[in-house]
């Protein structure tokens, strides 16, 4: 007996594409430009990172040597020198133990230490321990990058979160609107202006020139607190971090505010009926439901902190003595300063891998099962 079954008209993939052909045609220019200006350069950089390439007439395949140079580190242990005549430890006029310089130590064993430079040193007992690297500037810049990633992410999330929460709980709708406008207004001022202003804020009084705002304020408290913040290797990184204080980020604040506005009022009512108040509401209700917007803000902050170097280029050029160098600026310097485009590409690939790792980690950490649309 024949069975009657409903006829199901399943459209093939090709058929569905054909039906929506106009949409796909409209998308072609976008993807073509994306491919030409985003994907092609990236895959090209990946390929070029395997070459000794000066951008013009030298192009030699060297495999992973660029990566090896970037990441090579060795530990050198130097013992105190011994007086050949007495057999005792050699001491200088001040009674300090005498050590061979790390440069001379490495020069004596060229084969092993070819291309290595001193990165940092410390003492263990009487032994001098030196970390030597083929590119100490890159590795130090990497440490700076991590510091900037942590602080930039905090600046990009905590302050805007606080502000968004305060705005959300403002009683007056009108004042909320006014504050929103005030928050976004500074965004129309070019960022470079703010950076140049902050460079002046840190200025010391020199030759009749007045001190910058930061030193003027510190000078009112105690003149000895005035300092050349951008000219000291110990203070330049904290000074860059402090730039832009109080770090009001209008765009991020509005994104988080939109997230708060999207939370249904019934949830607040339910929480209140359960006895939740202020901090508990924020911690148990608002923060979990803000994971979506927070993730967005966080990823943008991460990308900015890993790739960004414009503000450092303007404020310090990576100095003094490369103390404020970051990988992005080092990439730029290698490519456009030293004509080492292959090497610069390798730095770019490493940055890309780091970004992907950071992004995936942050996405997993802030994964949310419930999200509300604003």
């Amino acid at each position, binding site marked *: 007996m024949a069975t009657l079954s409903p006829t199901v008209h399943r459209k093939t993939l090709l058929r569905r594409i054909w039906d929506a052909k106009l949409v796909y045609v409209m998308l072609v220019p976008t993807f073509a430009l994306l491919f030409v200006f985003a994907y092609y350069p990236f895959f090209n950089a990946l390929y070029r990172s395997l070459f000794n390439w000066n951008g013009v007439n030298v192009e030699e395949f060297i495999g992973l040597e660029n990566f090896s140079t970037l990441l090579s580190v060795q530990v050198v242990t130097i013992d105190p020198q011994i007086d050949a005549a007495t057999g005792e430890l050699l001491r200088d006029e001040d009674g300090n133990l005498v050590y061979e310089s790390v440069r001379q130590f490495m020069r004596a064993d060229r084969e092993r230490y070819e291309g290595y430079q001193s990165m940092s040193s410390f003492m263990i007992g009487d032994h001098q321990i030196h970390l030597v690297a083929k590119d100490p500037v890159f590795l130090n810049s990497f440490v700076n990058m991590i510091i900037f990633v942590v602080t930039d992410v905090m600046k990009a999330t905590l302050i805007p979160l606080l502000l968004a929460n305060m705005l959300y709980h403002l009683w007056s709708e009108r004042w909320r609107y006014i504050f929103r406008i005030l928050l976004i207004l500074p965004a129309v001022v070019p960022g470079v202006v703010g950076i140049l202003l902050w460079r002046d804020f840190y200025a*010391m009084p*020199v030759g009749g020139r007045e001190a910058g705002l930061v030193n003027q304020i510190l000078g009112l408290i105690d003149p000895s607190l005035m300092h050349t913040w951008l000219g000291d290797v110990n203070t330049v990184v904290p000074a860059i971090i402090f730039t832009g204080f109080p770090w009001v980020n209008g765009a991020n604040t509005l994104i988080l505010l939109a997230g708060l506005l999207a939370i249904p009022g019934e949830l607040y009512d339910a929480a209140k009926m359960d006895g939740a108040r202020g901090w508990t509401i924020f911690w148990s209700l608002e923060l979990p439901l803000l994971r979506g917007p927070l993730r967005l803000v966080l990823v943008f902050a991460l990308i900015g902190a890993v790739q960004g170097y414009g503000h450092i280029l303007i404020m310090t050029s990576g100095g*003094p003595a490369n103390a404020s160098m970051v990988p992005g600026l080092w990439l730029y310097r290698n490519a456009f300063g030293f004509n080492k485009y292959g090497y610069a590409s390798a730095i770019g690939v490493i940055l890309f891998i780091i970004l992907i790792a950071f992004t995936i980690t942050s996405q997993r950490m802030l994964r949310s099962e419930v999200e509300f649309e604003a």
Partner: protein
Amino acid sequence: MFKRMLVLLLALAVALPLVPATAQEDLAGEITFVTFMGEWVTPFETAAADYMALHPGVTITVSTVPYDGLQDFYRTNLVGGTAPEIMHAEPWWNNFASLELIKQMDDVFAAPNPYNEDDTPWGDAFVQPFLDFTRDPGGHINVVPWSLYGVGMFYNKTFFDNNGITAPTNWDEFMTTCKAIKDAGALPMYVALKPNDAQWFWPLGMLGNFAMRSEVEAVNLRTAEGWAFDVEDPTSTLGESITVDEAWVAFNKGIIDPLAAPEYRVIAEMMNEWAENCIDRQAALAADGSEVYQAFWTGQSKIFMNGTWFISTLVNEINNLPEEQQFEWNIFAYPSPTADNGEMFSMGVMNQNMNLRNGFIVPANLDPAKEAIAIDFLQFMTSTEEASKLFSLNRVDEETGAEYPWSYDPPAVVGVPMRPGTEALYPRIDNAEMGLFLTNGQGDTQGWDEFLNFFGQQYLGGMIDTDAVLEEWSFSLEGGLQRALETYEEDIDQQFLDENLP
């Protein structure tokens, strides 16, 4: 018949490129001339107009590009094959030469300039030894010189006079002068320990090459038969340059190794003494090169090392100050060390910092017709008659009607007069010397960056001592020279290296 025509056409096709394209009456086409110096735009436009009147078939467009990012702009266009036919550039052009991006001028300089009346080679029309100073480590000339510069020490004469301070004439007096300025409560020199302020690295070359004169013959080994160095005759080094292989041999012999050569220690210590007495180290570490000009004309600093190009800016800015802040200024020569500062300073006097300021480069592998126009136009511009006209053009102040020079630059073309009143900065070389004192590998940008870091910032900034800086310098210079050996591999004389390396 057809075959004959074909053969004739083929023969024509082969022969045509061989016909010299420099026959001036045949020139036709369009080229672009790019400059980054606003003060030269009108004179260059004048030159283009004069040339186009002579060659109606040629169109020359003069355009300007900003100085910021200029090297990147040129490099990108040279690599992409879209570079203007003539580019006004500064002495970093040899960075492009090492990449084979710009035309070598050796051949065209060997032929006469058709716009000059004599039949001497075009290259002889440029002021020496500055033309020779442009040679790349392979010994080639890659530029058509245009203007020179003279650097001196601008000083606030009003402040000096009010405080009974006189302009120094030697190194020790210079240090005393700086101390006197500090004692009067002022800052002697506002300096930025960055690559965009030359006040800290210009003196290094001057002092260093002065100190190294006695070593010239020991380093310049790949030389013409019978050549001898004569310190009293600045022309005795003409045609000579320190090549990479010579520098590498000298380094390995310890002659130019900062760890082994005593001259490097003396110069480092002198520069450290200068930093201690004449600048504010911490402020210099934070300062940017863009601030140092203003610091002088607003009275923050009392001495400013700068060149002929600064005169017109200084005149304008001081005129714009409120009357009570205006001051009188003057220039003294960079104070030379004497034998009292070290035996190495006993051969003649220190040469001032005077050199080629800028010139014109032409892309390599240019379309032959366009190259012919570019070269012909440059010959026209640098003819004695046209260059004299361009260097004497004035601009008129619209408010006062007064005339000011477009530029105070000294000309690089022989026979073109200087601007009256600037003769004190006329480029001259008192004694012969060669560029032995290397701060980094020759033309090596990475080595220069390292030098800026350990010498400019760490040492002059007071973070490391002399022993440490000499050690860093030695290793950095060694690395830079090794890179230069690879870059200029084709110009290396391996036999010379084998015979001379210790």
